[in-house]
């Protein structure tokens, strides 16, 4: 299958065949293989303690990636989620340092992050600047803004004993024994999943992403849909920023940058779960877990960081290659009708 073919993603779903499913199971199978390999290699890996800790460590990436999924589903990309995350962390940490009550800090943090989303939406939807360039520019601008707001990039440190509980629990609290960041990530991922795959908004967003020409028929809504995707992604990244500020009791400039590439990677690993290469929240979470468990397993197995990038890159290539090879075997037998591409998806429900 060439790049051309992956672009043809019809909105209609025929019933899956057993032979079609295998290539789509690659990512989950690799996830299972990673778990199996590391539980053999290190006794601590497959313990409840460790797995819960991995989830806790991964919550921020999971949040960012869930937001990224929405944008990619809408046919765009958001390189500026790191900026939304950072500005939210900055605002929240600054508010706590200025001794505002916790909910104000959280709200201000989210507002700063959402502002990034609104800027993106304006640039991409109103000015029609291509998403890659628009969000790349916002990345540059946001990095400058961070430096200008913090006297050149000074971290904001919060004294642990003086941080009000209502703020500290965002990153460090537990709900029924589950760390709060994990709860937040699961809730957000669940809501985003339902919104994308269970609402009219989600269906329309998918159509605008996959068939922009066709959906233009439905008029101005396209703009509102696109805008909502960028605002939502930034909002979720902002929540991740608040969690990060709370968890580290600090704002450290440019912390968000770390998550952008991994989030994009996770989203597209997730796309292999779909017959049409369509991104989805469950798929994204599989991608996030592959990255997280691989990093954790390599740390537990005592692999030097020298080799970790190599292992990660090879694992990624392996998932993708297997997916493609298996998909090829399938397409050589069953060829989807070419006319499917022109079909305008009916609005179901």
């Amino acid at each position, binding site marked *: 299958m060439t790049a051309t073919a992956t672009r043809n993603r019809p909105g209609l779903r025929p019933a899956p065949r057993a032979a079609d499913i295998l290539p789509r199971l690659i990512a989950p199978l690799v996830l299972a293989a990673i778990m199996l390999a590391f539980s053999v290699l290190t006794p601590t890996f497959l313990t409840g303690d460790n797995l819960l800790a991995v989830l806790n460590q991964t919550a921020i990436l999971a949040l960012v990636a869930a937001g990224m999924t929405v944008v990619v589903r809408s046919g765009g990309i958001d390189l500026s989620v790191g900026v939304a995350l950072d500005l939210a962390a900055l605002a929240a940490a600054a508010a706590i*340092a200025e001794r505002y009550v916790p909910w104000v800090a959280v709200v201000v943090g989210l507002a700063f992050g959402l502002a990034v989303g609104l800027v993106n939406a304006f640039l991409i939807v109103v000015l029609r600047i291509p998403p890659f360039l628009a969000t790349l520019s916002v990345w540059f601008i946001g990095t400058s803004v961070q430096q200008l707001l913090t006297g050149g990039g000074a*971290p904001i*440190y919060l004294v642990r004993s003086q941080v009000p509980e209502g703020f500290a629990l965002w990153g460090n609290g537990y709900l029924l024994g589950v760390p709060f960041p994990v709860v937040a990530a699961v809730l957000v991922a669940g809501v985003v999943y339902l919104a994308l795959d269970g609402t009219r908004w989600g269906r329309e967003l998918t159509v605008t992403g996959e068939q922009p020409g066709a959906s233009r028929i439905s008029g101005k809504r396209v703009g509102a849909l696109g805008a909502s995707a960028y605002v939502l992604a930034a909002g979720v990244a902002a929540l991740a920023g608040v969690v990060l500020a709370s*968890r580290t009791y600090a704002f450290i400039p*440019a912390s968000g*940058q770390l998550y952008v590439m991994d989030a994009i990677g996770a989203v597209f690993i997730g796309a292999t779960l779909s017959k049409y290469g369509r991104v989805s929240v469950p798929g994204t979470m599989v991608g996030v877990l592959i990255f997280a468990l691989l990093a954790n397993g390599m740390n*537990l197995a005592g692999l030097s960081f020298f080799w970790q990038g190599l292992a990660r890159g090879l694992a990624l290539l392996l998932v993708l290659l297997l997916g493609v090879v298996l998909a090829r075997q399938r397409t050589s037998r069953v060829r989807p009708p070419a006319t499917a591409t022109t079909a305008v998806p009916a609005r179901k429900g």
Partner: protein
Amino acid sequence: MKKSPLVRPAGSLAAKSLALSAAAALVLTGCSLKEPQAASNAAPASGAAAAPAAAQDIPSLEGKTVGIAAKDIVHDFSRVVYDAVQARVKELGGKVIATQAEAKDDKHVSDVENLISQKPDAIVVILGDKTTLTPALKKVDAAGIPLFTIDFQSEFSANNVTSDNWAIGSTVARTLAEDIGGKGQVLVFNGFPGVAPCRIRYNELKLVLEDYPSIKLIQPELQDKYEGTVEDAKQQVNDALRRLPKGQIDAVWSCWDIPQIGAAQAIDAAGRDEIKVYGVDAEPGALDLIADPESSYTGTVAQQTKAMGAQSADNVALFLGGQQDKVPTTSYLDPVFINKENVTEVRSELGL
């Protein structure tokens, strides 16, 4: 994005952002949203750099321009020095052109080149690497511009203001060794073996440990990064804590404080109070943890950053004022070793 038919989720978002702007307005107007406690000494660190003016007969820099090229301003050391040099030059009546390279080696070289084009009366380079910068520094020399360095030595530099990194490295190392009773295992962050101060401090650690054969460095060493250091270090240490259960880690070492803030947070949360954490630089966040009796953060080293910046500016002024003989090749400023006992005292003394 206008008022056009917004779908439900988007609509709720719009409502949310309304609520947000209302909150923002509240923030602007009232302080009733603030925590009730009296504002104590918890103000965030600001980069203000009122240099302790020991200025008796420092010549004026009136009409002189000083170019500054800092490698980065992402951590407290370089940022405070960067601000302090600028403040002192301005105080002496000089003009400043300041650049910082966002920790990018290539941009640091470009910054120095760009400063040469501006033909300043002197150039101060803050942190850097001899290998990568030497060609650019040679050009500074060729252009006849006096060069001053902070925290790294160069053959082209008229003066280097620095802490004694060898002393810092060996003192931290032997303090660590003594604190853990001369035996045990040490987890090490060694992501920047190429950065001069880090290289020196790490080599000193190794040197000291030659005489403590019962102390082992845990393999693999961990990677500290420039971006997202605290959270990243926290995760790595969390994983290490599970890999090496109680009794297998006695201390964590790093050549700077920022990764150690994450390390100490991980260790404290895991309740592994047998582990001691050591850093360098006296980042405010690290000092907060050292001051916290519950925290595993044990020690750091304050470099007299404000004084270092001011000293460099003074040296520039002396040099340009014709008093070259008063400018030594290297001006050492004494590091201050901070532990749980003296942290409060040192903080108020040095204004950290």
